[in-house]
């Protein structure tokens, strides 16, 4: 126990003497939360729209004004031919072109079917799909008004109407969804990178050899090395939760103690990964790239940015091995939906088993050898 205290004292002196360290511990959480949560949004608004109005009647004008009044669209230009707009679409000035055909009004007045053409820049496939469906809804509304006007039959009073209710996030605020995930990202990166790099650094500059000839026990070394980073990561998590609550007004519906308790186990997992990486590498460069390789994959597949449900079966199965996915899932459920212990039992079990495996493996791999 005394030995561990001496090791801890030394680690803390070194960590806080490093001028980069304090900014990393304090600034990174703030920057990540602020930048990530504002950038990571799939909201679609202000789609820049161009019209090709070949009809030029009162009705076509009416339809165009529906689009102009929608919060989703802003009118970029009007042209007589699609060809005039191709260049603009190539340069991303225009994302969508609506073509109103000749005789649009005439056909409608005769209750004849008429086709609108919608051209969407689909480089971003899912956004294109969403933009098209917004446009469709506007046209649908316009359509039923026209029918009412023509036949006196009010379509709005008949038929099935879908009434959406958005639980847990009625404003559909994307930040609410991102912040719990970003908190996970934050503690994972801090935990795994700082701890892994720290140990490899001692290997690289040779001080580890001096430590290895001392009678220090394996568990003393590992606790002394990892505990400081465990504390730092826990501090950052609390700090992040406070920022989330105060600046972003993210609800924390579930129990804070549940969050902290599971985070404590999760960090053992992450630190175990860091330690494991340090045992199989010799230089900081290798350690860093190895850590990056795994973490970029973990992050991308974790459901932080794109929904896990949208991934193919085999990648979803790959996520069984993804610690970040479990913890993000846990954090989102507890923070946003107020899920309790029994609701997230499966995530907690996975994290715990995983923590035991990684830490065990890392301790097994760690050798007091040169």
């Amino acid at each position, binding site marked *: 126990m005394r030995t561990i205290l001496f090791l801890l004292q030394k680690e803390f002196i070194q960590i806080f003497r490093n001028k980069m360290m304090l900014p990393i511990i304090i600034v990174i959480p703030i920057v990540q939360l602020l930048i990530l949560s504002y950038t990571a949004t799939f909201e679609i608004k202000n789609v820049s729209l161009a019209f090709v109005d070949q009809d030029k009647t009162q009705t076509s004008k009416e339809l165009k004004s529906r689009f102009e009044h929608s919060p989703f669209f802003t009118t970029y230009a009007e042209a007589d031919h699609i060809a005039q707009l191709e260049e603009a*679409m190539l340069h991303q000035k225009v994302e969508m072109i609506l073509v109103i055909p000749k005789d649009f009004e005439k056909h409608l007045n005769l209750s004849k079917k008429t086709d609108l053409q919608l051209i969407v820049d689909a480089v971003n496939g899912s956004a294109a799909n969403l933009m098209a469906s917004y446009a469709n809804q506007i046209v649908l509304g316009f359509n039923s008004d026209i029918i009412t006007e023509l036949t006196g039959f009010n379509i709005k009073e008949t038929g099935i109407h879908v009434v959406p209710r958005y639980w847990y996030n009625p404003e559909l605020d994307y930040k609410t969804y991102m912040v719990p995930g970003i908190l996970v990202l934050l503690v994972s990166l801090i935990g795994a990178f700082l701890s892994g790099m720290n140990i490899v*650094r001692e290997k690289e500059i040779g001080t580890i050899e001096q430590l290895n000839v001392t009678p220090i026990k394996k568990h003393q070394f590992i606790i002394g090395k990892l505990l400081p980073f465990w504390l730092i990561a826990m501090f950052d998590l609390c700090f992040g939760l406070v920022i989330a609550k105060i600046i972003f007004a993210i609800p924390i519906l579930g129990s804070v103690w549940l969050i902290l308790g599971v985070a404590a186990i999760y960090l053992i997992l992450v630190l175990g990964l860091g330690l494991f990486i340090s045992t199989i590498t010799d230089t900081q460069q*290798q350690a860093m790239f190895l850590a990056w390789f795994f973490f970029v994959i973990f992050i991308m597949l974790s459901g932080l*940015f794109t929904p896990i449900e949208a991934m193919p079966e085999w990648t979803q199965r790959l996520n069984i091995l993804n610690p970040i996915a479990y913890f993000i899932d846990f954090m989102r459920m507890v923070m946003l939906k107020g899920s309790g212990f029994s609701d997230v039992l499966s995530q907690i079990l996975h994290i715990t088993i995983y923590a035991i495996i990684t830490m065990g493996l890392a301790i097994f791999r760690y050798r007091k050898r040169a």
Partner: protein
Amino acid sequence: MKGFIIKEFLQIFRDYRSMAILFGIPIAQILLFGFALNMDLNNAHIAIVNKSGDAKSIELINKINSSDYFIVDQVFNSETNIQAAFQRGEIKEVIVIPEDFAARLASNQKIELQVIADASDPNTASILVNYTQAVVSSFQSQNAKGSSAALPLIQVESRFKYNESLKSVYMFVPGVFTIILMLVSAMMTSISIAREKELGTMEILLVSPITPVQIILGKVFPYVLLSFINAGLILLMSAFVFGMPFSGSITLLLAEALLFILMALSLGIFISTVSNSQQTAMLLSMFALLLPTILLSGFVFPIKNMPEVLQWLSHLMPGKWFIIIVKAIILKGAGFADLWKETLIILSMTLFFIGLSIKKFNIRLATN
């Protein structure tokens, strides 16, 4: 000079772990993300509260279940169980079918179909509500016997340009391409130079008859070559594995890639001149370079929906301009005439970083 470059190559190639990292990571990532990153939701698990229980309501449930979008997981009699099911994370949406569904449908009365979405993930929620709307409309037009009023007069015919089948991979491959070039070029060089400084071998090189510029060139040249090979590999994979269309000129694309690699390398050199240890170089690269490249370049998230400050910031991201170039050449078949502005921006960034590094380097030599 030649000997020096050879030494750098030997150091990189002899270290099999670095080689695995240099080539293994890009290949693994492009494959994984190309297949895995996807925005199209399929088979979302939902629940239905059926208060009516008549034949028509069952028909609607069957219709929903048989669509590709949904799997009806649970059917409840009342709304009481919804909260618990959401909290366990079993379902993403609940559709509430009201009483007397069939009767009201037959008599053409207004029916309100409540759709409760788990909006803790707002994106998924709004997509699912959209899908529900589509399925319900189609159910309605099947059931609107004779009443011509329900049939839409205006039909929208959508054409998705540059990506007819709306593949997500078209969006992600250019982004992954950019990030990998950035990672390998900028991070690798900055760390490799910082390493020489940390281990003290830089001083030995500095007192040798090789000039500082030659040292830097020697350090950078192997990475130019390796990154270029990487770029080629990724492009081959995106063509043959993911079937990207490659509408534009390959030569132009490779030339632009080379320019971007040079930009990333000069950025890496600049980072190494301002950092004195590998750890600093790594953290700088990670937080000043990699995250912004992922977030502010339009790789995953559209830039135009961000707050204005961040949009401004995104202009400073070299990756943003390169992603525009790659997408324009591969998907839209753009030529140099369309892209000279973006090219010029990357070129001036390259010169800026080189100039800054030389200045920094000279100051350091002068003070020593």
